[in-house]
């Protein structure tokens, strides 16, 4: 329950602010998740680029086992985004999983959080399967080369923009209770009694 506030009363009972209706915002998190997903799909590492990279860098005999791993990742992505999703959505999810796990050997808290933020609740076995498959693929490469692949798309998406106020000195100090009277007991303030003799 919201705390009783002066500004809450002003918003409700005076005519100096906009009377906003927040009820329509109940499902805003779900809408945002899908919006975020759309935005990320547009910017992120495309699945085809990963496949092309692997084809280019690996020998044919290595590609046979890697193809199985790629299938595993696609299968895990399908379970995470739902079987009804189109191939584009599944490939985008697979690329996201590849990007998330390319330098990991197990599903940690950060990875779980990232997947949940992108897709909502998901079966953990699928995440583990995707992680294992990505790990097997990554074992064919020096860690730096896969990181470079992921990094190029980050740069393309323009993460180096300048934020307004970036160098501004900001203080986190906030007003607190500034008077610390003890509750008087029998007319006298409480005294701390030490039992340490």
């Amino acid at each position, binding site marked *: 329950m*919201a*705390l*009783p*506030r*002066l*500004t*809450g*009363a*002003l*918003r409700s*009972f*005076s*005519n*100096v*602010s*906009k009377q*906003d209706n*927040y009820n329509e*915002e109940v499902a*805003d*998190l779900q*809408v*945002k998740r899908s*919006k*975020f997903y759309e935005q990320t799909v547009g910017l992120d590492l495309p699945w085809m680029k990963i496949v092309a990279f692997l084809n280019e860098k690996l020998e044919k005999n290595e590609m046979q086992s890697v193809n199985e791993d790629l299938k595993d990742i696609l299968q895990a992505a399908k379970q995470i985004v739902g079987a009804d999703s189109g191939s584009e959505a599944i490939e985008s999810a697979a690329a996201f999983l590849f990007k998330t796990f390319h330098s990991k050997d197990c599903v940690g808290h950060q990875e779980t*959080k990232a997947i*949940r*933020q992108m897709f909502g609740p998901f079966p953990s076995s699928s995440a583990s399967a995707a992680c294992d498959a990505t790990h097997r693929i990554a074992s064919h490469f020096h860690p730096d080369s896969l990181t470079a692949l992921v990094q190029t798309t980050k740069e393309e998406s323009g993460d180096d*923009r*300048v*934020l*307004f*106020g970036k160098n*501004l000195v*900001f*203080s*986190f*100090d*906030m*007003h*607190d*209770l*500034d*008077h*610390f*009277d*003890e*509750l*008087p*007991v029998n007319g006298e*303030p409480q005294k701390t009694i030490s039992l340490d003799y």
Partner: protein
Amino acid sequence: MPALPLDQLQVTHKDQKTGRLRTAPALHPGQKADRRFVLYKPPPKDNSPALVEEYLERATFVTTDLDWLLALPHDKFWCQVIFDETLQKCLDSYLRYAPRKFDEWVAPSPEVADMQRRLHRSVFLTFLRMSTHKESKDHFFSPSAFGEILYNNFLFDIPKILDLCVLFGKGNSLLLQKMIGNIFTQQPSYYDDLDNAMPTILQGFSHILQHCGLQGDGASATPQKLEEPGRLTPSHMPLLELKDIILYLCDTCTTLWAFLEIFPQACQTFQKHDFCCRLASFYETAVPELESAIRKRQLEDSRLLGDLWRRLSHSRKKLLDIFHIILYHICLLPILESGCNGVQGFVEEFLQVFSPLLQEKRFLRDYDALFPVADDVSLLQQASSSLDEMRAAYILQAVESSWEGVDRRKALQATAPP
């Protein structure tokens, strides 16, 4: 060629459908990105993992989106701010629900605390950019259009300004003074809004008195009907109801004080509504009753009672501070600044503020303990040769008599901040 203000700037862009070049105002809803900001919700009180996770997800969306917004060029930033309702609601929800440090809340996990800090900074920077009409020599608004844009789109309003002061006023006071000063300068209608909000602010104090069965105004001067249930006094109401009243009082006092500290130019508007007299009268009626109500409940939750006592002490101090800020800015500062010339009006104002308070003994005593009235009267005597000595003497006498039967040394110790 000198740059034009953003409100007069036209941009040419290619129409997506027809492929033709079109000229349109730089500030146009079509320039807004479809971003969909989410509302802010405060950290969960019980730190349960599922709720913490939802909080973190939501807060991550808000900070990411605000950082994206802050990185936009000047014109795109303003199109988003003016035309994106989801952004306005997101910012408003932060101001409404962000925990104040004086709120009663469970210590958050380090991850939540860290996220809250990131959010706090991003929200402040967004409001800072929104209150700046000249961002650089090429990126600016004409002042009058800026004032209209802020006001007509409710980008700032009185509750938001009060929230900003209480949330950011301690650590960032200099910047906030500039921000709020600029908003009121570019759009004087905010003074009218403050004037219109004053009855609601005063109503808040009346509600507390009504709730406590202590209403002093005419509204409940009618005799209680026989069949009417007895009005609850603070000593007899349920503890949780008493808690709500004290939390509300604490929030009200701290918010008003934080606002006046940052923007003392509002003191005149407050005093137009006889604020000092009403404040003193409220103090005199409510404070002793609330104190007594807490003291009497020795058999109830002692931790909660101790917390309520601290909040009430804090509120008392803030009420006295508010009174002093107003008195200082409407009377004492002008006297100090103008020396001995033209001070008569301010001296008279001082006497008029105090004259109706001579019966408010508890208030006078507590105020005198923090801000000695004799010092102020002495200033008046030095500044004005025509001071009405009789009225001044009455005031000093009333202050002196308010101390009768009270150990002044102990009271000073109790009232002074640690």
